[in-house]
C-alpha cells in the first residue's frame, strides 16, 4: 500500500534531479534550444557593443600603438623580459583545457553528466586557444616578422630552430587548435542539421552549409560516432602535450624557479583546475542568461564542483612538492624566491592565491549544498581562476625579478598598454562566446536525447532504481 506512493515520490525526485530521467520529446528540446539561440534582447546588444569597443581599444588601439612605438610601451624591463603577455598566454592555454577535459575524458569514461555540458566547454577550448594564440604575436619585439618561426622553404635556406621550446610550443598549439576545432565540429553536425530544418532565411543558408547534408541515416550516425570516439581518444594526449610544452618553455631554461622537472605535470593539473572552474563559471552564466534550467541542473553543478575540488587537491599537491623542493634545495637564489613570495612585493598576491586555490575550495566544496548553489559556485570558481592567474603571474613576472646576480634584480609593474591589451583579449574571448551563443546550438540535443533513451527507472522490489543501457 505504501509502496505505490513511495515509488511515485521516488520517481518524481529522480525527475527533478536528473536530466537523464526526466525525458521530454525531442521536438520540445529542439524548440528550447532554438528559442535560446534566436532570442536577443537589448541587454544582449549592449553587451556585444561594449565588448566590441573593448576589443577595438585593446587589440587595435593598444596593440597597434605598441607595434608602432616598440615594446618599451609595455612595463617589461631588464631582467623581467616576460610579463603580463606570457602570463595571459599561459592562462588562456589553461582555460582551453576545459573543453577537452570535460568533454573528451568524460566521454571516454562515459560519465553521463557530461551530456548537456560538452558543447559549451568545447567552444571554450577553441575560443580560449584563439585568444592564447594571439599572445606569442603580441609579445614579439618584431611582430611583423612572426612568420620566420614557420618552417617554409626560402631562398636563404633558413630554417627555424627545432631545439627551441618555442617551436615545440607553436607546433603543439596549432595541432591542438586544429584538433579541438574538429572535435567541436563533429558532434555539432546533427545539431546544425536540426537547426537547418527548423530555421529560415540567412540562418537556414548558414546551417545548410555547416550541416554537410546530414540526413540522420544509420550509416551517418555510425560514422559520426566512430569519428567522435577516435577524436575523443586522440585529443587527450594532444591536450597533455600542449600544456606540458607550455610548461617546458619555463622548465627547459636555467632560470631560478623555472628549471624544474615537475613543471610539466604541475602546469597540466593547474590548467585543468582553472579550465574546469571556468566551465562552471560559464555554465552558470549561460543558464541564467539563456534560460537553460531544464538542461543544466543541480546534478551538473554538483559533479563539476566535485571535479574542481579534486583538482584543487591535485594542484595543491604539485604546488607543495615544488615549493618543498625549492626550500630544501637551499640554493641562495631559491631561498630568495621563497622570501619574495612570503614577504616580498608579491606576497599579497601569493596569499590571495593560497586562499582562492586551496583554502576556499577545501572548506566549501565538500558540502553538497554549496556545490549545487549556482551563486556560491560562481564565486568559488571565479576565485580559482583569479588564483590561477596569480600563480602564472608569480611564476613568469615574479620569478624573473630575482636572479643569481643581485645587482641585476628588478621590479615589474604592468603598464596601461599591457592592461588594455589584456582587457581586449578577455573581451575577444567573451565576444566570440556571446556571438556563438546565438549561432551555435549550445546544448547538444542529440546527445541529451541519446542519454535519455538509454536511461530508465526499474523497479527492484519496492525501490525504483535508475539503470543505463549501452546503446552501442
Amino acid at each position, binding site marked *: 500500500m505504501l509502496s505505490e506512493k513511495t515509488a511515485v515520490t521516488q520517481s518524481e525526485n529522480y525527475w527533478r534531479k536528473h536530466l537523464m530521467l526526466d525525458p521530454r520529446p525531442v521536438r520540445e528540446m529542439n524548440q528550447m534550444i532554438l528559442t535560446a539561440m534566436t532570442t536577443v534582447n537589448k541587454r544582449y546588444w549592449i553587451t556585444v557593443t561594449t565588448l566590441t569597443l573593448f576589443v577595438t581599444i585593446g587589440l587595435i588601439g593598444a596593440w597597434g600603438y605598441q607595434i608602432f612605438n616598440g615594446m*618599451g610601451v609595455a612595463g617589461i624591463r*631588464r631582467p623581467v623580459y616576460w610579463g603580463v603577455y606570457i602570463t595571459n598566454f599561459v592562462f588562456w592555454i589553461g582555460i582551453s583545457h576545459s573543453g577537452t577535459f570535460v568533454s573528451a575524458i568524460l566521454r571516454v569514461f562515459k560519465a553521463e553528466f557530461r551530456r548537456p555540458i560538452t558543447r559549451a566547454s568545447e567552444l571554450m577550448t577553441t575560443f580560449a586557444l584563439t585568444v592564447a594564440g594571439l599572445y606569442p604575436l603580441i609579445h614579439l*619585439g618584431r611582430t611583423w616578422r612572426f612568420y620566420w618561426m614557420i618552417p617554409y622553404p626560402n631562398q636563404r635556406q633558413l630554417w*627555424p630552430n627545432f631545439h627551441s621550446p618555442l617551436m615545440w610550443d607553436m607546433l603543439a598549439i596549432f595541432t591542438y587548435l586544429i584538433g579541438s576545432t574538429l572535435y567541436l565540429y563533429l558532434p555539432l553536425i546533427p545539431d546544425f542539421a536540426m537547426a537547418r530544418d527548423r530555421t529560415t532565411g540567412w540562418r537556414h543558408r548558414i546551417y545548410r552549409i555547416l550541416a554537410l547534408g546530414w540526413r540522420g541515416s544509420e550509416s551517418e550516425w555510425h560514422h559520426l560516432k566512430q569519428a567522435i570516439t577516435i577524436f575523443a581518444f586522440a585529443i587527450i594526449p594532444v591536450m597533455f602535450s600542449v600544456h606540458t610544452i607550455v610548461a617546458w618553455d619555463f622548465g627547459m631554461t636555467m632560470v631560478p624557479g623555472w628549471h624544474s622537472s615537475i613543471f610539466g605535470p604541475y602546469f597540466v593539473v593547474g590548467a585543468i583546475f582553472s579550465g574546469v572552474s571556468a566551465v562552471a563559471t560559464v555554465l552558470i552564466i549561460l543558464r541564467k542568461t539563456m534560460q537553460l534550467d531544464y538542461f543544466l541542473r543541480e546534478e551538473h553543478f554538483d559533479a563539476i564542483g566535485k571535479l574542481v575540488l579534486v583538482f584543487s587537491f591535485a594542484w595543491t599537491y604539485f604546488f607543495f612538492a615544488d615549493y618543498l623542493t625549492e626550500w630544501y634545495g637551499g640554493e641562495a637564489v631559491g631561498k630568495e624566491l621563497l622570501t619574495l613570495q612570503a614577504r616580498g612585493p608579491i606576497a599579497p598576491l601569493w596569499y590571495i592565491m593560497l586562499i582562492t586555490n586551496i583554502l576556499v575550495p577545501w572548506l566549501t566544496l565538500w558540502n553538497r549544498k554549496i556545490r549545487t548553489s549556482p551563486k556560491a559556485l560562481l564565486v568559488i570558481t571565479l576565485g580559482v581562476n583569479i588564483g590561477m592567474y596569480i600563480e602564472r603571474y608569480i611564476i613568469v613576472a615574479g620569478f624573473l625579478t630575482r636572479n643569481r646576480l643581485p645587482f641585476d634584480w628588478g621590479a615589474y609593474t604592468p603598464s596601461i598598454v599591457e592592461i588594455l591589451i589584456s582587457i581586449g583579449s578577455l573581451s575577444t574571448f567573451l565576444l566570440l562566446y556571446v556571438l556563438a551563443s546565438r549561432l551555435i546550438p549550445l546544448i547538444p540535443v542529440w546527445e541529451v536525447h541519446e542519454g535519455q533513451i538509454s536511461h530508465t527507472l526499474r523497479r527492484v522490489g519496492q525501490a525504483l532504481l535508475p539503470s543505463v543501457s549501452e546503446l552501442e
Partner: protein
Amino acid sequence: MSKYEHHWTMIVDLDKCTGCQACVIACQAENNIPVVGEDEIRKGRGMQWLRIERYWEGEYPNIRARFIPLMCQQCENAPCEPVCPVFATYHSEVDGINVQVYNRCIGTRYCANNCPYIARMFNWFDPQFPEPLNEQLNPDVTVRQRGIMEKCTFCIQRIRRARETAEAEGRSIRDGEVQPACGQACPTNAIIFGDLNDPNSQVSRLAANRRGFRLLEELGTEPAVIYLKGGESNVI
C-alpha cells in the same frame, strides 16, 4: 687547442680594475649603443653591453664596495643559443664566440631570460642618437632596430678587420692585434684580449694563472671571460 679556428678569450684582472667605467663608455661609443635617457635608465632599460656591478658588503662604518665589470661571457655552452626559435643567436665556428644576428631576431626575448649573466639588452624603442652623438656613429657597426636583442660581441668588427688585414698580408693574426674597445680604453690594462688557441698569447699565459675563475662556474656554461682575483685589492 679547441675546435675553433680562433678561441677569443678575455681576461679581466680584478686586482687591477679601479672601477672607473672608462670601458663602459668606450663600449657604448664603439658599438653604437643608443642613449636611452634618464627615465628609461631608471626603469632598468639602460643598454650598456658592459657594466660595472657594484656590491656593498657589511654595515656602516665597516662597509666595503666590491665591483666587477660584466659583459656577455661568450659561453661555450651558451644557454641563450638553443632557446632561440629562429637561430638569431648561434655559436660561431670561426671565432668560438656567441653571435647575435640582428636581422634574424624577432624579439621573443627568450635568450635574455635564459642568460644567467643578464648580459643581453633589448631595443625597447628605435634607437635615438641626439646631436651631436649622431656625428660619432661607428660606420663598422649596424644600428639596431626596435624589438631586437643585442649584446657584447667581443667587438667582432675589430676581429674581422684584423683577420682581413692578416689575410691580405698572408700571415696569421698577431697576439695583441685585436683589442676590443673596453680593453683599449682601460687605463690600468685590466682587460686583456686574445686567442686562447695560441699557447704563447698573453691570454693563454694569464688563463693559467691561479688567480683565475669564471663567473657562475657551477652552471657549466664555460664562459670565455676569465676573471683574475687574488686578494682584497679591488675593494674600496
